């Protein structure tokens, strides 16, 4: 095993594989920065180019590109409040709030360093977990995966707002997201649901136009209303001095970063949950690290822990999602399903062979994730100061450029004007939510989880009827959901009692 580990490193360090990896990194860097241009789409576009490559070169190219997309996606999210990738939307909540306070450099430093640590944890998990992951994946059937989705939603709905009223709005937003996820042709019976008689809605609502609308439009309107730059009237000297502070923040909250990385890895391992879920679960966990209700108020207003959690989980999930792809041929996400196509194009069959005959190739993937992330983070740190000063550019110069990117970003989802209309409609909903004090995170998680949860619920009911509710892991997850819902209420009550006692 150790021999294969080093052989894998030597394979990636061969000049051709290294050159392809760097090419992939450069492509992934820009794909991540541009809103809407998804990592999975680019992976699919690049797939035909690997025909003539050796397996190690092909994976160095594809994984090198894919591994860095989430890292640079965080940059767009932090600087402009527009999700660079669907998987980097959670970084906006605190990262962009920090940018508006003149702490763009610190937020970027934290996002990049936590991304690097997340990638290293994910790659380490991939290397270590291959022999032991089989029983874990097999323990989770459809009922458990459905409950896992519910726990995730309960997590974010209960933690994204304060008190009973906030929790009601959190669950309402989550439920609304789940409802919008049912739009389109039903996967079981083929019934057209809520399509309003249009062909466009048959495939359901695409995540990218919805995400871009719900997050970017309120930010653009607010930037226009303020009439200043993103960082307001803060002195420019402060902006680019925080990168090192962001790096230090990562180590100050080192165990939080590690825990969020493990959450990302775990979500990545579970087939079908997808990368967009990992960031919100990690964000929910990060908010839980607040010691009291007062401290929790800082989340959404620029708490660095809200950047560290999603940043770490986004990158660690890649290593995690490679585990079932390589070991069982079960892709953990859309991108992994495309990568699986790459395996077949190269004549490799995922499964036991990848853990025995082609173990060095498997380890070369681990090294690619590590090296690609190290190279990207190093390059980003060199550019960080210049990137941070973008937040001082006058608003009326940024707005048309951001709006063009928002419109084209959503249009590229299906190359349909309907995508842009969806962005505007959800932009309106997002604006009302922000205006009314409703949390947007549960809505997005509901939308992401809706399709998955529906499939798992249907299979659970069809296969086990009501008995699925009595499976041991399901019971544990139900208990966990109850704890997650009750915990903030108990915490708020306790802090209220403490205040009374002090008074």
């Amino acid at each position, binding site marked *: 095993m150790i021999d294969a580990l080093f052989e894998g490193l030597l394979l990636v360090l061969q000049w051709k594989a290294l050159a392809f990896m760097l090419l992939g990194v450069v492509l992934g860097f820009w794909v991540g920065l541009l809103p809407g241009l998804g990592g999975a789409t680019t992976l699919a576009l690049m797939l035909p180019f690997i025909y003539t490559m050796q397996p190690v070169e092909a994976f160095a190219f594809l994984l090198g590109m894919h591994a860095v997309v989430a890292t640079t996606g965080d940059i767009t999210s932090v600087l402009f409040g527009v999700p660079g990738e669907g998987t980097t939307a959670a970084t906006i909540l605190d990262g962009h709030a920090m940018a508006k306070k003149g702490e763009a450099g610190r937020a970027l430093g934290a996002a990049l360093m936590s991304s690097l640590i997340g990638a290293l944890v994910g790659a380490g998990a991939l290397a270590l977990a291959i022999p032991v992951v089989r029983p874990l994946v097999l323990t989770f059937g459809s009922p458990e995966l459905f409950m896992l989705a519910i726990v995730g939603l309960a997590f974010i709905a209960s933690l994204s707002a304060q008190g009973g009223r906030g929790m009601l709005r959190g669950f309402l937003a989550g439920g609304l997201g789940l409802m919008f996820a049912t739009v389109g042709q039903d996967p079981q*019976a083929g019934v057209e649901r809520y399509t309003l008689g249009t062909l466009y809605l048959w495939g359901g609502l695409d995540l990218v136009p919805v995400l871009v609308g719900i997050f970017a439009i309120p930010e653009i309107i607010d930037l226009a209303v303020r009439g200043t730059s993103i960082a307001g009237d803060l002195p420019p000297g402060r902006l680019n001095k925080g990168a090192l502070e962001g790096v230090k923040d990562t180590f100050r909250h080192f165990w939080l970063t590690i825990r969020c990385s493990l959450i990302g890895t775990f979500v990545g391992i579970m087939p079908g949950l997808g990368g967009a879920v990992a960031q919100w679960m990690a964000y929910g966990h990060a908010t839980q690290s607040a010691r009291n209700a007062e401290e929790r108020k800082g989340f959404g207003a620029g708490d660095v822990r809200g950047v560290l959690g999603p940043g770490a989980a986004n990158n660690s999930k890649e290593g995690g999602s490679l585990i079932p792809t390589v070991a069982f041929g079960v892709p953990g996400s859309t991108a992994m399903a495309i990568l699986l196509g790459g395996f077949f194009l190269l004549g490799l069959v995922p499964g036991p062979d990848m853990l025995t005959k082609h173990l060095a190739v498997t380890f070369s993937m681990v090294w690619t994730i590590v090296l690609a992330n190290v190279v990207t983070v190093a390059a980003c740190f060199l550019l960080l100061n210049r990137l941070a000063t973008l937040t001082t550019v006058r608003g*009326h110069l940024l707005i048309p450029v951001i709006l*063009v990117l928002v*419109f084209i970003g959503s249009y590229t989802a299906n190359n349909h004007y309907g995508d842009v209309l969806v962005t505007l409609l959800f932009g309106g909903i997002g604006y009302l939510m922000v205006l009314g*004090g409703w949390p947007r995170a549960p809505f997005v998680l509901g939308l992401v989880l809706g399709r998955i949860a529906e499939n798992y*619920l249907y299979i659970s009911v069809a296969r086990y009827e009501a008995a699925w509710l009595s499976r041991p892991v399901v019971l544990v997850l139900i208990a966990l959901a109850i704890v997650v819902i009750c915990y903030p209420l108990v915490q708020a009550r306790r802090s209220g009692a403490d205040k009374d006692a002090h008074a």
Partner: protein
Amino acid sequence: MHSKASLALGLGIMIVSAWAVIDALAWPWKAALFPLVIGIPVFCLATAEVLWVLFGSTARSEIMDFQLSTHLPANVTLRRTGLAIGWIVGFFVAVVLLSFPIAVPLFVFLYLKIQGREGWRFAVLFTIAVWAFFHGLFERLLHLPFPAGWIQAWIA
């Protein structure tokens, strides 16, 4: 303002969820299971929210999310919000009528001239730079298909 937005959202969700549940009742159980499992509690929660807004406290709940700026006078905020929405909707209308390749430079130029009050030279140069980026990346490199706008289609 926030309670009006909450009321609008709550009422909107009530109407949408009621329609969703009524629609789902006519489907086979396979297709209706999830919409009903979600739609009914969402309707109940939305009703609770509406009642809370109408008869309960109007205090704003603390959320972990972005907050709109509040330092400007209400009339200025309202006017600027209306203007921003106007520009966004206007850009969408321009895209539909003229297609992206024409709407993008037109929107950027008009925004800089009218909203940004920039000089002719800067506005033209900035527009050319944005158009070059758009044309080079999305048209030349990625070959994104941009269908003709309604006006071009009508003229043709």
